């Protein structure tokens, strides 16, 4: 493999699914890095929206929170949660939503709330935040996460953010406005996306040098497998320069040689 880390490639690969002019909701961490990277490369007109209220900021490197002043820099408006999660997201004006979570199951459901009994949990996570709103209303959902077996169970302990629930028609049946979102998960091993016919994840790409068997070994559910999965394209020198020098210059999120 070339002179780049898999974290870098995850971020760059996720950004490739963002198109210019799209309205993108993302929190901090790798989603923010990926969004900033898209804005500085192929999607200069994307509208980044932060759940605390900023609309279309020109983000300074590198926010540590959605409440960070760096994520408010030169926004066109510094509004409220209602402005962005209500009047943009629930109103149906969001194209892309980034999500994360402790568990992601075969239908793209996400748990960021509890492991174990809800009333007396074994592990308590931070909770939904804006994630349930993003999962309920976005047309495209992107998830960046390290690939670990425990993160990909067959079924989440708790559904914080709905994917396809238990089948392709379930979102429509429970009344969600975004009925068939395209959910993609980008890991350091693979890219999986939901199959609209079944609502389940299928493998679409493999990271360079990673075998299909390894992905299946390290996934707690059995994803659908294509007859042939393409390899994720490695980053160009220029892409790496933008990522390292302009997006995350202090290596707050990505160590360049991990």
């Amino acid at each position: 493999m070339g002179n780049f880390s898999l974290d870098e490639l995850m971020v760059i690969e996720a950004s490739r699914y963002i198109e210019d002019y799209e309205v993108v909701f993302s929190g901090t961490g790798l989603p923010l890095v990926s969004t900033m990277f898209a804005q500085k490369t192929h999607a200069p007109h994307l509208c980044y929206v932060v759940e605390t209220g900023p609309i279309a900021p020109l983000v300074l490197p590198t926010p540590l929170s959605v409440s960070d002043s760096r994520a408010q820099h030169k926004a066109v408006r510094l509004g409220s949660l209602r402005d962005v999660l209500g009047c943009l997201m629930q109103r149906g004006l969001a194209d892309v939503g980034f999500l994360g979570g402790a568990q992601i199951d075969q239908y793209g459901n996400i748990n960021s709330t509890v492991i174990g009994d809800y009333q007396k949990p074994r592990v308590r996570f931070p909770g939904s935040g804006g994630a349930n709103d993003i999962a309920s209303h976005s047309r495209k959902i992107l998830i960046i996460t390290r690939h670990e077996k425990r993160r990909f169970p067959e079924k989440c302990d708790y559904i914080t953010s709905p994917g396809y629930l238990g089948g392709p028609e379930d979102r429509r049946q429970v009344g969600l406005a975004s009925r068939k979102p395209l959910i993609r998960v980008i890991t350091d091993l693979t890219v999986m996306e939901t199959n609209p016919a079944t609502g389940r994840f299928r493998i679409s790409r493999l990271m360079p040098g990673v075998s299909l068997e390894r992905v299946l070994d390290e996934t707690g559910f059995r994803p659908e497998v294509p007859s042939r999965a393409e390899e994720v394209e490695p980053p160009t020198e220029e892409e790496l320069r933008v990522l390292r020098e302009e997006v995350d210059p202090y290596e707050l999120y990505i160590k360049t040689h991990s």
Partner: protein
Amino acid sequence: MAETTSEKVMTAREAVERFVFDGAVVGLGGQNVGRCTVAIAHEIVRQGKKDLTLCGCNLSIPMDIMVGAGLVKRTEAGTGNLERFGTTFCWRRAVERGTVEMEDYSHLAMVSRFLAGEMGLPFMPIKSLLGSDMLTRQARSTLKKYELIDNPWNPGEKVVLLPALNPDVAIIHAQKADPMGNVIIEGFLAHDVEMVRAAKHTIVSCEEIIPTERIRNDPERTTIPYLYVSAVVEQPFGAHPTAAYRYYDYDTDHLNFYQRCAREGGKAYEAYLRDYVLDCETFEDYLDKVGGLKKMMALKKAMQEML
């Protein structure tokens, strides 16, 4: 009727004595590491107001301090965490032990409950939460979390109704307020405006008190008019260690120090509470202990460089 004006400016101690009571439902403004109500939270801990229910969208360090001090019985919110600085450790521990009850909503759901509250409505419809376990699980003491209805104008379309939330007292930290209680918030607003207008009383701590003439000369900058505000507490750096947009950046050193103590819990956290909250007569004593003028000027400079 509007409250009379000149009596609203008071100390944190007076504000908490008058408007926060045992068993109160307390709304908290700000989010994660921005504009959190730390100064007033410290005062609540010093006065030992107990059996509190804390609500908001993201509950951050003020909530964690009150939970760590054993004053909280219940939280209703979208999240508890400080993002990159980690989760709210005292809260996580308390929820896992069952000593604090959490009722989960999404952030839009919480905003919608305040929105109903601020408009004098009993409930608000929302299209989030559908299909999620926020509709199938609830805290023990919650009586009725939601209602699911068919849209009367489009039968077959499901809508979730959420009850209004009108806190007994909302607490926010703002950049500016005048003696009447008119408030200017700079930067992101989060859920603060809806929550304040829904609350029965509001305590605003602010970076500076400005003359009412400035409000009247530039009224389009007023975020919240005085009618909703009960107490104005002038407390520069009152959000420390979190940030106040245009005034100062968050304090990475102290956030990390707080998080280390909170994560460890036990004696380490007791020592934190004693040294940085209980043994401080006012928030000024705390500011001296965390680095004083030199530190505050550095945080101001960091913000200036961003603007």
